[in-house]
């Protein structure tokens, strides 16, 4: 039998804090065989990164492995000396972290950072090390490796940086590569490229990998086996196919039911959030850790501590559930509360030819002499769309596409350079928030992205909601404010006692609910939601999207939903506007945009989104090149530098006309209509969706 590259046996890891010992991971078992890619998936706080740090024996001062063993190539790492560990790290085991900019030293050239790896570990001289570095940069498909070697990290884009980090990790041909959310900080189309690369590496170099992610779709694309973690323990372990198609732990199933897969729909097939919250390490139940949130909990069976057991008749599939054999897994596939679709009303928001340019002043002497002192960043160019009452319009695009700039203009934080933004027929594009009447301000509100920044940490939740009520004249007296605050807390399904709490006493999802309560405090008719769920864990995401839908139904609010996540958009939106470098590339109803004919950019975006469903067959379109800077957009069609369907010189010189292919479905592309209509769907479902 082959020696596994890595074997964790009954591993437990603790952190020591002011409050005492906090067990972060316990009773953890994992084997990684040569050439195998194992995914570890779980929500924040489940201990997945702690496992990675423990494997590197890099726990910091306040963490320690308290039990069990970690065997690397058959040797217990806990018995190794510091010197031995130092030799293994970087040469035998390498790690790639989430933030590429934080893993590269900003004051060293890429060359010096790369060549020191083989120089230190293998004693190569500088020339040989550089030759190796060039080979590896080529292997990670970075164009022009020599130029990259001479660059500083800030001169590279995020995708290039992460490729350089992966090259660095591979330089000494490690036996084991640890990847901790390596693509979370990247745009989807860039992520797709890096994921391709990771898959390719596994094949070419035969490196074993541990891929840590919260995204089940990415695990499906990259891994052979998967380990699902919950609250410091592995709860399910098996091949990707076993776990994805025949999950046997209620938590795993809960996860799959709360991610917006194709076939879900916010009315007919709503997502099912997992109720409750992840317990804090010190409040963990003694028995099954998932017990308090589980629908199948039985005190006598689930009360005692649970152990991993082999699933009968399914070799290699393990689960930590006493009742897995008794649950009817085919029943209750969707138990979400179904509802009638909303009927959109009159047009509330109209954007006509809206433009927003930023002036960039260059005060250098050279610029003054040449007369090029002012340049423009065209953040929004000819934005054109409308939104109706009780309708959700999604604006989709990668970073730098201008979606947040539009939100700022709508909210009055920036002035439009040209065109009109009409809210109920009144142009507000050039009206800064200072000059807006109170009624207009309260009817246009916003839900922000980052739950940890959306509330002021210095003030209580109640006072922050109360301020909105007072400011918008909804409530005047103290009693009235308290009563309305309580009503708003009821609306977002939080206990009324939360009014006295400080934001740091709330979880991310709870904070986001307060953010929603605040936005709806003044009876808003248009609410801009800027990536409201992208920073939340999936099980919480489902609850927050459900809440938004409920409130929208009650208040008939128009929602402008800004997102880069096409899965959430397909689930939530009625209509979609796809933006690229400040321009609308395609718009239409959700069904129109998610089915052919596509704009080539939409097509690439759709193929880049990882989908956690083994029955889905996707076309793989990996865009070449990097996102151009909005400071310096390419001439002609903005997408021409990366377009896989570019037809020729016309794309480089002329801006395409907007074609209306169906009522409301508009595409800006040079491709002839006939060719657009012949496109095949990017996503094919092998099995019939549950419609």
């Amino acid at each position, binding site marked *: 039998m082959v020696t596994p590259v890595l074997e964790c046996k009954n591993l437990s890891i603790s952190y020591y804090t002011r409050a005492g010992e906090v067990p972060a991971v316990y009773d953890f078992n994992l084997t990684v065989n040569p050439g195998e890619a194992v995914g570890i998936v779980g929500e924040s706080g489940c201990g997945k990164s702690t496992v990675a740090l423990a494997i590197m024996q890099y726990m910091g001062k306040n963490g320690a492995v308290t039990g069990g063993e970690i065997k690397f190539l058959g040797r217990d790492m806990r018995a190794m000396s510091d010197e031995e560990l130092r030799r293994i790290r970087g040469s035998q085991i390498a790690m790639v972290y989430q933030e590429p900019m934080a893993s590269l030293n900003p004051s060293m050239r890429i060359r010096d950072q790369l060549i020191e790896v083989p120089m230190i570990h293998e004693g190569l001289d500088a020339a040989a090390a550089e030759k190796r570095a060039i080979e590896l940069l080529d292997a990670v498909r970075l164009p022009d490796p020599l130029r990259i070697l001479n660059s500083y990290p800030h001169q590279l884009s995020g995708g290039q940086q992460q490729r350089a980090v992966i090259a660095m990790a591979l330089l000494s041909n490690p036996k084991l590569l640890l990847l901790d959310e390596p693509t979370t900080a990247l745009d989807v189309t860039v992520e797709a490229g890096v994921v391709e690369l990771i898959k390719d590496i596994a094949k070419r170099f035969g490196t074993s990998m541990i891929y840590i992610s919260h995204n089940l779709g990415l695990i499906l694309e990259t891994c052979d086996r998967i380990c699902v973690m919950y609250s410091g323990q592995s709860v399910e372990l098996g091949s990707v196919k076993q776990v994805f198609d025949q999950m046997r732990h209620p938590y795993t199933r809960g996860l799959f039911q709360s991610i917006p897969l194709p076939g879900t729909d916010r009315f007919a097939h709503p997502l099912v959030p997992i109720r409750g919250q992840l317990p804090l390490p010190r409040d963990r139940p003694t028995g099954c850790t998932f017990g308090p949130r589980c629908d199948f909990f039985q005190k006598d069976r689930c009360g005692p501590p649970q152990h991993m057991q082999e699933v009968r008749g399914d070799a290699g599939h393990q689960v930590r559930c006493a009742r897995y054999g008794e649950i009817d897994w085919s029943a209750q596939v969707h138990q979400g509360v179904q509802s009638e679709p909303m009927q959109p009303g009159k047009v509330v928001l109209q954007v006509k030819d809206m433009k927003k340019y930023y002036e960039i002043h260059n005060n250098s002497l050279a610029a003054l002499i040449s007369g090029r002192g002012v340049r423009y960043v065209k953040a929004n160019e000819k934005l054109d769309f409308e939104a109706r009452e009780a309708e959700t319009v999604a604006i989709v695009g990668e970073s730098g596409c201008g979606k947040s700039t539009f939100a700022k203009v709508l909210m009055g*934080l920036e002035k439009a350079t040209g065109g009109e933004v009409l809210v109920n027929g009144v142009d507000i594009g050039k009206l800064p928030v200072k000059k807006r009447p109170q009624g207009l301000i309260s009817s246009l509100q916003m839900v922000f*992205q980052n739950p940890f920044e959306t509330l*002021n*940490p210095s003030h209580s939740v109640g006072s922050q909601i109360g301020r909105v009520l007072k400011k918008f004249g909804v409530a005047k007296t103290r009693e009235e404010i308290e009563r309305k605050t309580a009503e708003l807390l009821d609306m977002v399904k939080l206990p009324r006692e939360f009014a006295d709490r400080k934001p740091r006493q709330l979880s991310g999802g709870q904070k986001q609910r307060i953010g929603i309560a605040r936005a709806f405090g003044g009876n808003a008719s248009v609410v801009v939601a800027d990536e409201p769920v992208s920073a939340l864990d999936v099980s919480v995401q489902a609850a927050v999207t459900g809440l938004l839908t409920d409130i929208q139904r009650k208040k008939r609010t128009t929602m402008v939903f800004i997102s880069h996540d096409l899965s959430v958009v397909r689930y939530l939106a009625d209509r979609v506007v796809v933006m690229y470098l400040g321009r609308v590339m395609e718009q239409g109803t959700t069904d129109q945009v998610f089915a052919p004919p596509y704009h080539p950019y939409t097509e690439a975006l759709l193929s880049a989104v990882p989908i956690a469903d083994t029955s889905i067959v996707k076309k793989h379109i990996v865009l070449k090149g990097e996102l151009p800077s909005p400071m310096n957009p390419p001439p002609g069609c903005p997408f021409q530098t990366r377009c896989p369907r570019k037809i020729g010189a016309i794309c480089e010189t002329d801006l395409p006309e907007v074609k209306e292919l169906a009522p409301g479905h508009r595409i800006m592309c040079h491709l002839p209509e006939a060719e657009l209509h012949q496109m095949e769907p990017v996503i094919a479902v092998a099995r019939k969706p549950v419609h």
Partner: protein
Amino acid sequence: MTDLAASPARPGRFAKIARSVGLLRESPIGMVGLTLVLFWVLIAIFADLLPLRDPLAQAGADLLTPALTPSPDGGHYWLGTDDKGRDILARLFYGSRLVLFWSGFATVVAYAVGMLMGVAAGYRGGWWDEIISFIGNVFLAFPQMVLYIVILSQLGPDSSAGQWLAGEGFSTVWVKGLTIVLAVMFATAPQVARIVRGLVLDLKTRDYVAAAEVRGETPIYIMIVELLPNARGPLIVDACLRLGYVTIAIAALGFLGLGLPPPDPDWGKMISEVRGYGTAAANAMIWPALAISTMVLGLNLLADGLREISLRD
């Protein structure tokens, strides 16, 4: 009281202070600092209750006596007497009131002005920032002592501003004290403004600031309610250090004869009054010097301790 809703917040606040002190226990350095500072604060508050001599009473016969000299009234001059036969212990203890009051007052004023300057420069940016930062830099360009001397000589009791204050019924001590406060403000506020500006540049990118802007709050509201409370962590540490620097500055001014007018026992002045007697006055000089250094050391150690616990979590 009908204010029932507000009452639950009160024990919360006390609990918070108690918790902070509890956290400080984990930093031995911080506890030493807190002990030294508390010692002087308690002395200043309860000086009247202690069996002290009159700090201004001159005993003609006992000049520059060493510590523990028996006094004619049957007791002791515990720390000896100064050149005019005044009891050093009494002068030190009563002097702590002056030192703590004026350095505290000056620091608070400098902080208030510096925070407003910094938050306006940081939040408004553009011309606001250019102008405020320029004014601050002009004051920072002077060596501090020079700045103090220039301001105190221009705004002393003999200046028109001083005479106006005196005409309004302020005593000489107050006129002098207020000019010192003003001088400290000019020298310190720009430094505080710089720190606050830096903190605000970071804080203003937070979503809760955008949320306030989007609901139409005024810049003043955003600066005072949304921004400043969140800058308090680093500012509390800095304020402790700053209070120590101001204490030294006021003592130095007293030593140079620019401090509070005689005969009040200002620690800096206590040293300068006897320095002409050379080694014969060693005892009279060492005690006020020790008082200044223990208090400043205490403040510095307290700041270190606060920083230590704020970094740990």
